[in-house]
């Protein structure tokens, strides 16, 4: 996917003005946060579980090479094949090659963020395959030719009316001629169409929530059961996964699963949790003939080596964006790449560069809500600040801001001049504001007012001046 993060400012303003989008965002707004809070309240050991999860993730990252090797060995032992993709390009090529070798025509896909990241769909379509997303949300945005706007709920930006229109436009060929209005009807409509695709598919591609090193098992969670059908019905199953998805044992995976569902949707556990290990063995009633895993690095190992290692603990639950007021106001597309919200604002600049995505770490009030809810305690605001530091060092930020900061630092380390300057400023502003007590506009400060707000005027005297006078009076 071509990043559009450089246009964040314009896109965020458009999003704020997009009334349909705002309807969808408002409807989604508190739902997840409320459900998460309820689930967390219902589990007294939630915080202890988080500590364990952090320990598991840190330990694995510490020994990532070891666990990846163990995982790859276990996959091979179970009859599967592991492919290493160091870049997005590699990953695309590997997936296309496997599909070609399998003589495939139709490919079904379970939801996979790494698939979005490396652009699997486009590559496959370009190579002439028919690709169908089987997660309902992904299916909807595939019909709309849009990227996901949320990592858990890809079509959260769509209203029911828009979805009905999409079915109406795209399902005529399947015999749908009336406009649907109820959600169950739409779910059913998608199911009918997808059922035929599952049966016709030659290859099924899924992501991975976790990869278990000891057994070579891939774990995926869904609420629709589409993951099961995608990995077991076609002849070939391809798992695409970031290298950070590996965990040592099945027990570790369970610990993380307990956190994942609660943090993501407020469920104790998702409706389906699917474990798949290798191809069909003799005697198995179902399963694929071929089982491939594409392990994607694409910048992850360099994150491991620098200040952003903690970001690799991420289990892609989406809680940070569900609690982010900026995401809540503008939705996911404004961020301009695959991962939106707080986690995306860290990942995107690391993947596509600060020059492209420098706005993302800045478009945050550092309010800390994301870090508070992150199940693996990633200090997202600190990481965003570190990116700002990097941007500052690379001199990529706005020049006037740089000069302003330099002037301010000089000012703050010269207290006499500072005292004088602030005294004048407080007095002037109070006088200029006059009887109103606040400004409705001001030259050079236009940005403040662009936010649809006035600026309160100072009381008139600085505290330091008042205090000095009082001290003099006290002494007399």
């Amino acid at each position, binding site marked *: 996917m071509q990043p559009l993060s450089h246009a964040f*400012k314009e896109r*965020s303003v458009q999003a*704020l003005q997009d009334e349909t989008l705002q309807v969808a965002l408002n409807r989604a707004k508190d739902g997840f946060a409320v459900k998460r809070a309820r689930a967390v309240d219902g589990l007294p050991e939630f915080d202890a579980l988080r500590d364990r999860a952090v320990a598991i993730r840190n330990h694995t990252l510490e020994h990532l090479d070891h666990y990846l090797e163990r995982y790859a060995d276990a996959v091979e032992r179970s009859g599967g094949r592991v492919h290493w993709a160091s870049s997005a390009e590699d990953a695309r090529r590997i997936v296309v090659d496997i599909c070609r070798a399998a003589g495939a025509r139709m490919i079904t896909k379970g939801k996979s963020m790494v698939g979005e990241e490396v652009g699997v769909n486009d590559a496959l379509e370009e190579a002439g395959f028919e690709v169908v997303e089987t997660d309902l949300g992904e299916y909807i945005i595939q019909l709309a030719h849009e990227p996901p706007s949320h990592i858990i709920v890809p079509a959260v930006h769509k209203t029911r009316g828009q979805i009905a229109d999409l079915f109406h436009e795209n399902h005529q060929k399947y015999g749908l001629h009336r406009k649907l209005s109820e959600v169950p009807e739409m779910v059913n409509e998608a199911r009918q169409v997808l059922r035929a695709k599952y049966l016709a598919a030659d290859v099924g591609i899924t992501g991975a929530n976790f990869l278990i090193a000891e057994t070579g098992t891939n774990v995926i969670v869904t609420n629709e059961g589409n993951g099961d059908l995608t990995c077991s019905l076609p002849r070939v199953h391809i798992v695409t996964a970031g290298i950070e998805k590996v965990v040592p044992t099945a027990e570790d995976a369970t610990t993380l699963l307990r956190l994942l569902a609660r943090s993501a949707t407020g469920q104790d556990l998702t409706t389906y949790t699917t474990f798949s290990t290798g191809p069909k063995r003799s005697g198995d009633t179902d399963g694929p003939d071929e089982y491939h895993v594409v392990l994607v690095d694409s910048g992850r190992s360099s994150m491991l080596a620098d200040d952003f290692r903690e970001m690799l603990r991420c289990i892609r639950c989406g809680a940070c964006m569900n609690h982010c*007021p*900026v995401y809540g*106001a*503008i939705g996911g597309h404004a961020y301009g790449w695959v991962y939106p919200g707080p986690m995306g604002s860290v990942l995107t600049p690391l993947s596509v560069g600060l020059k492209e995505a420098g706005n993302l770490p*800045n*478009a*945050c*009030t*550092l*309010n*800390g*809500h994301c*870090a*508070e809810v992150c199940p693996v305690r990633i200090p997202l605001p600190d990481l965003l*600040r570190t*990116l*700002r*530091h990097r*941007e*500052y060092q690379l001199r990529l*930020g706005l020049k006037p801001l740089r000069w302003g*900061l*330099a002037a*301010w*630092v000089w*000012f*703050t*380390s010269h207290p006499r001049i*500072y*005292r004088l300057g*602030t005294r004048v*400023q407080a007095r002037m502003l109070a006088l200029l504001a006059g*009887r109103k*007590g*606040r400004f409705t506009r001001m030259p050079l400060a236009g*940005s*403040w*007012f*662009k*936010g*649809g*707000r*006035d*600026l*309160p*005027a*100072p*009381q008139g*005297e*600085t*505290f*330091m*001046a*008042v*205090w*000095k006078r009082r*001290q003099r009076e006290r002494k007399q």
Partner: protein
Amino acid sequence: MTAATEMPATPGRPRVGLFVTCLADIYRPNVGLAAVALLEQADCSVEVPQAQTCCGQPSYNNGDLAGAAKTARHTIEAFEEFDYVVVPSGSCAGMLRDYPRLFASESGWRQRAEAMAGKTHELISFLTDVRGMAAVQASFGRVVTYHDSCHGLRALRIKEQPRRLLASVDGLELREMGDSEVCCGFGGTFCVKYPEISGRMVADKAAAITATGADVVLGGDLGCLLNIAGRLGREGGGVHVYHVAEVLAGIADVPGLGDPPGSGGEPR
């Protein structure tokens, strides 16, 4: 040029250096006066170092760590001598507590920064958690709502302390707003870098405030309060904005933030 113009400390009373913050200094001296009054009620000897300026957040949060470190050194020098450093802002107190991070590779300064961080407190949590204050002598016969500023809430765990003290204010009724823990959209330079997003956030905040029917909104951070007052003022609604310390100290008889001078803070 530190402290020293103040009264001699009485033995047994802790010496508190008040870091008034640049916003309170320039915009709202009344907050500084309220802080002094409350600290004196809590049996502290309060001093105001004349060399203090800004905590360094603008630099820190915009990636200029060297600039932030420069401001931090200056602040440490000005406040090192006190038993406590007290700040009427969760955000700035949080910054002072973050100083050690600025000196990862300078062990001398890091130690000084750690000492400073260890004795720095936000005003309301200092009064309650450190000085054991349980009630204030003040009256304020109005309906108020309270906005939890993010840094105080999340970095310093300030939530129930201001409410506990407000409960002791004569005549005051606290009516909680929905989403009181959601950011108001100020975020330092964020509010001018992304004014449209910030504007949406503060409009949502103003709506939550207005929905309570309260006549006054209180909070512990002037940055947020300026933002909120700016929005409420633009809407022309009848909600007045004060720093919580002004009410607790019984000196919220001046116009609220953004109210016309001389309006005495009466309902509009």
